């Protein structure tokens, strides 16, 4: 039995064994910050009488205050994702509101200013608020999502890479556009591509990854490959590095399965109507990937590693590649020069260094004026 005194008035009698539970309850309350003054005083007294528990309490307090280490990097990325998502939702929303209410900004900050200026806007403001509320209650965020598209663009002279929601990696070459719906990965994994991209697709047998280009559809389960489908180029090229993929022609619907190290070239020009089925063969061509003998660089995917590579390609083709790579405009003012063939790798060279290098094997002159390059015969 123990006598407990509070000030000089209250006297309590404790049976330590019976009240053993009590000390732990008080400890819990102290740790969580829920204890009252009286409870804290009571605990202090009980701990004085129980040195073992007193030591435990010290350690427990230390434990309580050591919080798990958080991955702040993850949180930051998640926050960026969330803000992009919100931006998209707000864009969609303001589009809807504009349609309903005319040209009216939906941001509350601006709303406030309008309140002060025009009484008529107050009415619109209320109407807007009401509509927004109604809209929010009838549409969940999810439903908005299915309407919005993600679009990634690269200008000539710049490249980018990204990770899609399922972890699939995409490198987007210069002058290209990749779009995908916001419900990407929920039922299907579909993207649209114009230009050139290298994909490293995360395996998922249930949800094939499908790329739509203007000429072909490509279906894969999980693999790495390059697609080049610039609208101003002659051909759409699909180059498979590993795994397997299935290409469907949009015209004619023929299917081709590619194996590693194979490249499928499909003509971007319309097939002339007069072609008979047996000549339709000519619209595509299956070949091997081009490997540079010097260092085994795969020509088709070299741009991913910041290399501009061409192998036995015409000056015209090389010029197109250089236009995108350097973000310039190149005009070849000589028909014969256009069909000259080049092989080479550029990495850090400037445009004029690159052109100087080409001059070693073929004789031509060039002038550079504000990103406009004229190539002419000497």
């Amino acid at each position, binding site marked *: 039995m123990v006598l407990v005194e509070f000030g000089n008035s209250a006297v309590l009698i404790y049976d330590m064994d019976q009240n053993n*539970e009590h000390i*732990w*309850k008080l*400890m*819990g*309350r102290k*740790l*969580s*910050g*829920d204890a009252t003054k009286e409870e804290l005083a009571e605990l202090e007294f009980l701990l004085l009488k129980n040195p*073992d*528990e007193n*030591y*435990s309490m010290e*350690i*427990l307090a*230390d*434990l*309580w205050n*050591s*919080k*798990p*280490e*958080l*991955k*702040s990097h*993850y*949180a*930051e990325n*998640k*926050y960026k*994702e*969330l*803000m992009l*998502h*919100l931006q998209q*939702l707000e864009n969609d929303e303001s589009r809807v509101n504009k349609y309903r209410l005319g040209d009216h900004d939906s*941001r*509350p*900050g601006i709303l406030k200013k309008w309140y002060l200026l025009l009484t008529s806007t107050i009415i619109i403001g209320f109407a807007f608020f009401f509509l927004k509320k109604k809209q*929010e209650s009838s549409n969940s*965020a*999810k439903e908005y999502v299915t309407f919005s598209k993600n679009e990634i663009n690269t200008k000539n002279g710049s490249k980018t890479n990204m990770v899609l929601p399922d972890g699939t990696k995409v490198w987007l070459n210069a002058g290209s556009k990749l779009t995908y719906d916001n419900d990407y990965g929920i039922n299907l994994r579909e993207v649209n591509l114009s230009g050139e991209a290298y994909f490293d697709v995360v395996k998922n047998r249930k949800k094939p990854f499908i790329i739509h280009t203007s000429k072909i559809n490509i279906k894969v389960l999980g693999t790495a490959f390059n697609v080049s489908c610039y609208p101003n180029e002659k051909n759409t090229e699909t180059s498979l590095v590993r795994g397997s993929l299935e290409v469907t022609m949009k015209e004619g619907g023929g299917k081709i399965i590619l194996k590693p190290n194979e490249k499928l070239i499909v003509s971007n020009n319309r097939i002339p109507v007069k072609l008979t089925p047996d000549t339709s063969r000519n619209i595509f061509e299956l070949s091997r990937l081009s490997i540079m003998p010097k260092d085994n660089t795969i020509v088709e995917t070299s741009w991913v590693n910041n290399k501009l590579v061409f192998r036995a390609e015409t000056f015209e083709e090389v010029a197109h590649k250089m236009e995108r790579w350097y973000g310039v405009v190149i005009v070849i003012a000589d028909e014969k020069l256009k069909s000259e063939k080049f092989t080479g790798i550029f990495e850090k060279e400037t445009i004029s260094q690159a052109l100087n290098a080409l001059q070693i094997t073929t004789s031509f002159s060039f002038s550079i004026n504000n990103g406009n390059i004229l190539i002419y015969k000497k």
Partner: protein
Amino acid sequence: MLNQDEIRVLQLKIAENNDDHAFGQLYMSFIHNLQQFANSIIKNHELAEEIVSDVFIKIWQNRAKLGKIENFRLYLYISTKNTSLNYLSRHFRKKTISLDEMALNIPATGYNPENLMITSEAVKKIEFEIQNLPLRCRIIFKLAKDDGLKYNDIAKLLDISVNTIDNQMAIALKKISSAINFQFQKKPNHSSRG
């Protein structure tokens, strides 16, 4: 972890100034714990991520009214719980969840024995005890310790009495301290410390 006042300041900044930086601070400080909490109900990490995003999307969309919420920490947990239950009913046709079905794991804390002045062996034993607390005991202990919820908040969130929380916390603390005292069976010289 943000304290009550810090949360209040962020709340007002978001409501009055559309401050997305404040919104980010709030989001980043709660994302881990809310995801763990959602995961204890939905038991699917990706869905849990989605749920927490949904909760914060709603908060941003209704930010003008944010100043009116008094207990914002509790509000976040209740929103997460309700959104999780919505998912459950939508995907699994299950409308409620009992406390004993909620598996809230406590992430390893990486306690530094030097800071705590106990042996690393004891730290391992403590971690083990925490990870192996009975289910409801573990949820309550975690929400109080790692998530900084008050007893009243936990009672409202889990629909239990404060009395239950008192009892469960007592069980948890007793178990952990038995692990703390375990070291003295091998190291009787503990009386030498301060």
